[in-house]
């Protein structure tokens, strides 16, 4: 039967797509459905015209959905060549070592995309950007750090990159605030502590606990050097949205059936004795899809069934991934004509250029660092341009002469800003406008040509409902948006869901997916 599957996967977000690729690879018959006409759901990459369309449909917030958006401001005009932009709804960098990059490589999806090292990472302090050393090597070369401080910092980094779990320094300090730990146990200055907290440890707020922050520092330090000096990679064409398409193609190549842009009309749960427990009805698809298992994003299943789903999330005690639950993320996408100056040119410390000069750089505004900005949340800035095929190259644009004369790279930059929040109700424009203004003030040659401010609301914590869940009905907990960690989190969640599904289907196939050992190279015919 053409419409009977082992598993129906609903939603093409990052965790769903990784899981679909693994399940198809393991030999299961997979149908993968998304009501949107594009791949990627909340992690999608859109062209600029698609983004404008997306923003117009989200100008009123639908509180029905577990993850929902509210657009607070959209530029009335759209720059030319809108199809040459690849804009991510969930901009992120990829740690060079971690579960996500492993999945990309072992699934063979690496061949579908292109990647670059992230450029400089900077922190905003005392009204300017300062480069953050990304490896021990670069700390040695950094002349802005006093020698005594440098020695203390090195001592900390040696500690943090080693097996610190049983070390005397950590005993009894696991839940101390990381800031206090750095200052008291390693005598680091407030300035250096901030740099470590908000860049290497990618804290969102002050006061995060020491143990989890240390895990993130360690994975950051270990990632540096795998592909180059930066611990992070950026993907071409908007990053994770493009990689999602690679995972979906990998699933299709292994027999997965793809249905996009069809509304999910109904999800029916049959009696336990039925061989196909689940039925999914789609608009404009005559045959009802049937399966013995469903794996879905929370957004794609009817409200009435949500409380009966088995939440599938990777163990929350995977080190380094524990985060305080967010309520919302304020986001901004801005496009400038002209090239943003990478932060290493701003400060007094002239850091050596990162190899393979990237047009993507990342900067963190710690809480309270910017006048008029937030005193409680950090804000992350990520840029992308023609160098990662995210924006049209300057040569194809009618550009402003004086800009051309100062720029030898490209002439369009995309600016992403994100601010994690514990509370709702504020306007993303009010929250992020001061940051955008600050960035543009220090880059007077850049002309703002497009801006979008929106709020991404996240569902309140769902506790696993005790009692009546439906077997083989798996739903992903929502992915915590995070520039540094969400791709790794997605991969861990996908792996967990993969094993749950394999177990649920009771598959007789040789179930390897691409996490277990075995040959992971897709054979050519």
């Amino acid at each position, binding site marked *: 039967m053409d419409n009977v599957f082992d598993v129906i996967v609903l939603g093409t977000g990052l965790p769903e797509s990784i899981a679909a690729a693994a399940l198809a690879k393991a030999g299961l018959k997979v149908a993968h459905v998304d009501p949107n006409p594009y791949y990627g759901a909340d992690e999608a990459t859109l062209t600029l015209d698609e983004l404008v369309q997306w923003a117009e449909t989200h100008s009123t917030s639908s509180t029905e959905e577990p993850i929902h958006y509210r657009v607070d401001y959209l530029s009335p005009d759209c720059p030319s060549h809108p199809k040459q932009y690849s804009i991510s709804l969930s901009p992120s960098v990829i740690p060079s070592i971690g579960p996500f990059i492993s999945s990309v490589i072992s699934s063979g999806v690496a061949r579908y995309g292109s990647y670059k090292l992230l450029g400089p990472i900077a922190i905003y302090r005392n009204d300017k950007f300062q480069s953050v050393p990304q490896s021990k090597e670069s700390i040695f070369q950094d002349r802005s750090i006093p020698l005594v401080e440098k020695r203390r910092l090195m001592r900390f980094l040696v500690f943090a990159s080693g097996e610190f779990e049983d070390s005397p320094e950590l005993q009894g300090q696991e839940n101390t605030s990381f800031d206090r730990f750095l200052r008291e146990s390693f005598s680091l200055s407030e300035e250096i502590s901030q740099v470590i907290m908000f860049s290497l440890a990618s804290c969102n707020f002050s006061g995060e606990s020491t143990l989890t922050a240390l895990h993130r520092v360690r994975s950051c330090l270990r990632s540096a050097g795998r592909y180059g000096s930066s611990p992070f990679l950026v993907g071409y064409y908007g990053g994770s949205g493009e990689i999602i398409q690679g995972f979906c193609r990998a699933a299709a190549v*292994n*027999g997965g059936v793809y249905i996009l842009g069809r509304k999910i009309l109904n999800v029916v749960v049959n009696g336990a004795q039925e061989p196909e427990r689940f039925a999914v009805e789609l608009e404009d698809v005559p045959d009802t899809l049937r399966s013995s298992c469903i794996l879905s994003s929370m957004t794609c299943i009817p409200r009435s069934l949500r409380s009966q789903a088995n939440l599938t999330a990777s163990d929350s005690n995977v080190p380094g991934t524990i985060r305080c639950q967010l309520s919302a993320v304020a986001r901004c996408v801005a496009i400038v004509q002209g090239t943003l100056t990478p932060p290493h040119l701003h400060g007094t410390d002239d850091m050596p250029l990162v190899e393979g000069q990237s047009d993507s750089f990342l900067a963190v505004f710690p809480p309270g660092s910017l006048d008029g900005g937030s005193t409680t949340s950090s804000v992350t800035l990520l840029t992308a341009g023609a160098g990662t095929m995210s924006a049209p190259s300057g040569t194809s644009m009618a550009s402003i002469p004086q800009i051309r004369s100062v720029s030898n790279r490209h002439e369009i930059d995309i600016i992403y800003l994100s601010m994690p929040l514990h509370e709702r109700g504020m306007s993303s424009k009010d929250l992020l406008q001061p940051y955008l203004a600050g960035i543009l003030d220090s880059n007077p040659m850049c002309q703002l040509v497009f801006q979008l401010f929106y709020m991404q609301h996240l569902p309140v914590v769902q506790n696993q409902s005790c009692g009546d869940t439906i077997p083989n009905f798996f739903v992903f907990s929502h992915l915590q948006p995070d520039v540094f960690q969400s791709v790794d989190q997605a991969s861990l969640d996908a792996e967990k869901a993969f094993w749950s599904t394999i177990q649920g289907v009771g598959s007789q196939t040789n179930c390897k997916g691409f996490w277990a050992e075995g040959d992971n190279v897709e054979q050519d015919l």
Partner: protein
Amino acid sequence: MSKQFQFKLVLLGESAVGKSSLVLRFVKDQFDDYRESTIGAAFLTQTVTLDGQTTVKFEIWDTAGQERYKSLAPMYYRNAHCAVVVYDITQASSLEKARNWIRELQRQADPSIVIALCGNKADLAARRQVTQEEAQKYAEEEGLMWSETSAKTGEGVADIFTAIAKKLPLTAPPSSRTGGRGGPSGARQGVDLNRQAASQNGGEACNC
């Protein structure tokens, strides 16, 4: 001096018009009457020698069935230098679908893409529903290459790929939208993910 070019070629067309069979004939010189939908290959490669000096290597992407519900990803068209849009000469409706795919290509793909329209199943001419004149006229209007093939007998298959190869190096400039892999103009600088980690377990990122 010998020259080698490498191009990405994408296949398009309605389900069951013989896209995969056409490639299987071209790449392996095989045919299977009961082939199921495409399974198992990310892409196939085949090299065409033009004049002893010039070779063209095609990296051929099949739809992997994602065309069935119009669910092909933008990534599929990305950096494609050429496309073979296939219809079935015994199904008039398949030429209609081919026209839609060509419109889609003109919308999504690089403007310099070389498009060949290909009427497959020429061995079933007795059941023909699409005349050569009709298809050829449409191809001329749209500036497409056109020919008929039979993946079953092999007729015309090599010819259409050779014709594309001849047209390509001249019409496809080093594309500004070429990504990190597979372009004729050489790879754009980027990171090779498969490079082995130098320090996977040591945690020592520097040797100072």
